[in-house]
């Protein structure tokens, strides 16, 4: 009897499910189901379901703003922001300056954002002008802008005249350390703000709220006259030109916005992580963010806030859950190996999904 009911149910649900699958996208659905499966088998691997969920939420909050930094550039047709390290560097400059001037608590967090803003605007402007000169090849150029800026800053971190003892190398007294603790500054400032704890489940509402605020601003901006023009530039630049919109100006603006969001993104990331990481750390930050938004269903010239939310959750969820579950199952510590395999595997998958822009 039970079998009959099940088959009847499935027959009835079939059409409904097919419709849902189509609107959600099969690949996304498979990934979501895989994530669900991980959560289900987590207890059997000796892992607490709620701890896993809390970790996922936390990582979501850490990374969501960095993923959001993809959106403006995608809208204006500049493609995926592989030059995210440039925004991150602006954020690092802001963060280190905030510490240099010995701000503490919430003030240090806000000042980090304030200090990083002029850098983001200036660097973003230059980056935008450069991208306007290489239309059609933005993503390749962006990648190398990111890489070379990281290399350049590796020298600058040593040379810039920072002298706060908590940041510079202890023996020489100059040059910034690779890792700088945020203890006493803005470590956990959003993570612990309005955080809800029920047993093992911890939901960082503060981080969610901050992301929601930025996402709301981006969403609102895209509904303005300028935001509409930006989307049109991405959709058909010739149309936009013929309608009297300056394509180059819109693209530059979008790049500045993306760069600034990247700067804020890394500061949010740091407050949760508890440390500022300098030197080579921004090098590979672009790929996970790019993958997350592609996984969320965005394409090279269309992206929405929903894509950001779904993509970040799926990407970070799998990245958090797979290593711990696998570890629990095979009783050996291979978490780092698995983490690398899973993250790069997902990046590879996401990049095959991007539809090459026709322009």
């Amino acid at each position, binding site marked *: 009897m039970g079998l009959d009911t099940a088959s009847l149910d499935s027959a009835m649900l079939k059409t409904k499910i097919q419709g849902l699958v189509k609107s959600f996208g099969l690949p996304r659905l498979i990934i979501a189901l895989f994530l669900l499966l991980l959560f289900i088998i987590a207890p059997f691997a000796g892992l607490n379901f709620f701890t896993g969920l809390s970790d996922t939420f936390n990582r979501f909050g850490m990374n969501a703003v960095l993923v959001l930094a993809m959106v403006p550039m995608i809208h204006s047709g500049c493609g995926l922001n592989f030059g995210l390290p440039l925004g991150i560097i602006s954020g690092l400059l802001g963060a280190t300056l905030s510490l240099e001037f010995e701000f503490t608590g919430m003030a240090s967090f806000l000042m980090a954002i304030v200090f990083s803003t002029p850098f983001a605007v200036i660097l973003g402007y230059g980056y935008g002008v450069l991208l306007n000169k290489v239309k059609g090849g933005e993503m390749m150029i962006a990648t190398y802008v990111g890489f070379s800026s990281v290399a350049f800053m590796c020298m600058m971190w040593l040379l810039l005249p920072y002298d706060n003892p908590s940041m510079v190398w202890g023996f020489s007294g100059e040059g910034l350390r690779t890792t700088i603790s945020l203890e006493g500054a803005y470590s956990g400032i959003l993570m612990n703000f309005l955080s809800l704890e029920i047993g093992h489940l911890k939901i960082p509402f503060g981080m969610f709220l901050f992301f929601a605020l930025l996402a709301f601003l981006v969403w609102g901006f895209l509904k303005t006259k300028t935001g509409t023009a930006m989307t049109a530039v991405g*959709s058909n630049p010739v149309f936009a030109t*013929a*309608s009297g919109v300056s394509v180059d100006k819109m693209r530059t603006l979008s790049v500045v916005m993306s760069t600034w969001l990247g700067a804020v993104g890394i500061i949010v990331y740091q407050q949760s992580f508890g440390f500022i990481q300098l030197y080579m750390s921004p090098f590979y930050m672009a790929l996970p963010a790019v993958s997350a938004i592609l996984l969320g269903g965005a394409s090279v010239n269309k992206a929405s806030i929903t894509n950001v939310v779904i993509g970040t959750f799926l990407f970070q969820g799998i990245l958090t859950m797979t290593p711990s579950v696998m570890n629990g199952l095979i009783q050996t510590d291979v978490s780092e190996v698995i983490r690398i395999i899973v993250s790069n595997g997902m990046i590879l998958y996401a990049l095959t999904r991007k539809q090459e822009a026709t322009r």
Partner: protein
Amino acid sequence: MEKTEIPLLEMKGISKDFFGNQVLNDINFTLHRGEILGLVGENGAGKSTLMKILFGMEEILQTGGYGGDVLIDGKKVLFKSPEDALRAGIGMVHQEFSLLPEFTVAENILLNREPEKYSVMSELFGKRLNTVDRAEMQRRALKAISKLGIELDAGKRIQDLPVGYKQFTEIARELSKEDDKRDEGASSLRLLVLDEPTAVLSEKEAETLLSAMHMLSEAGIAIIFISHRLHEITSACDTVMVMRDGLIIKKVPAKSANVSDIASWMVGRSVSTERVERKVEVRSDKDILKVEHLKVIMPGEMVRDVSFSVKEGEIFGIGGLAGQGKIGIPNGIMGLYNAMGNVEFDGKKVTLNAPRMPLDEGMAFVSEDRRGVGLLLDESLEWNVAFAAMQIKEDFLKKIGPMKFRDQRAIEKVTKEYVDLLEIKCTSTRQKAKELSGGNQQKVCLAKAFALSPRLLFVSEPTRGIDIGAKALVLSALRRYNEEHKVTIVMVSSELEELRSICDRIAIIQDGRVADILPATSDSTEFGMLMVSKVNKEAN
């Protein structure tokens, strides 16, 4: 043609549906050797689907095949791919070009069928290293071109050619196939399908093509000729077949049919191509647009030295053959192509090479390149209609503090208005522009320009590639807009009859210069003479 002989092609009871949507219903017809069959019908009448069946296109098989039989030489055939159709001697020239822009004419004509030369390398490494016989290639290309009765430099690159010559290159490619050494069982070209080959040609070029068709027909090649230009059908074809809603409405000898009959069979109502006289006089003596010594660098449509002036409230036509520069004029004035010279609008000098300036002054432009320039294909109708007005005139915005947000309600309202006014067929105002048919896309382009409420409207090739019903609607919408809003219209078109039907005066452009400006009521032969004459009269 003897009626008793076995027909070259016979279609028996062909029917086809796409997922329950019946697009062809019991199609029966025969085609004899050397016969030219004119196939006409509005967009969506089923012409293209019928040709796809004949040509064995994959999408037919993928969507469940078709009903009925296709017979060649009295034998039933089932083409599984276009290659099968090619082997049976069926050639097709498509509406969209399939040419490599970087390659020369000769290379395109003989692409993948190049004559080869045997060399030492091929002895060593096999046939793949045969060299291309350039001289023979040139010879064959020229032979095919000469069959069309035109002159075309086979060494020119496709991207440098005007659109009409691209079309000739496509046809020459089909013609050149008879020179090929074919595999066993394959036959040389016997049936040629021309899908709207003249849509992008000027009248002179079209005539050349029609005479080329006659030459082919005398050589025994049957032709199925699809066109929206009915006078070409009646003059060039032996038989006319009219389709509507997936059915064959009429099949008659072309001699016994006239244009207005065919037009009414096509649309199921009578259509007049007669000149529409003005109901209201909106013209004044004031010059609203003055163009002096305009020079525009637009590849294929160079404007060398054009001067004319347009009176307020007038519908001013610009005609001429393809590639003579008529299209360059609005594109230059609107800042889309590099331009020099002096343009005055309502007494004020217009800054050239800055697209924003003429828009701010109150000019608007409906581009001939609908898909490339005219539309945001991936966005909704609402965006397409409202975008330009939003950016230029700050319409459809609501201010909240210093921010200007899109006013969704106003946008939806104005889009609905234009959908009703211009009879745009769509499922909703949220539908994406790319999902509409050509005629409806053109109407959206018009709506976009109307929403700007311009004082002067440039319209370039407003009826290119759209069916006769939509054409009449577009033209009457332009005239109505001119009369109701007193908007001056400058209309550029390759179709003289269309210009003559609604314009007040028509300028003919020849070799980048104004040949003359005549009242639209002048005899069409006078215009024809101007288009081909090499004498440049000074424009008045």
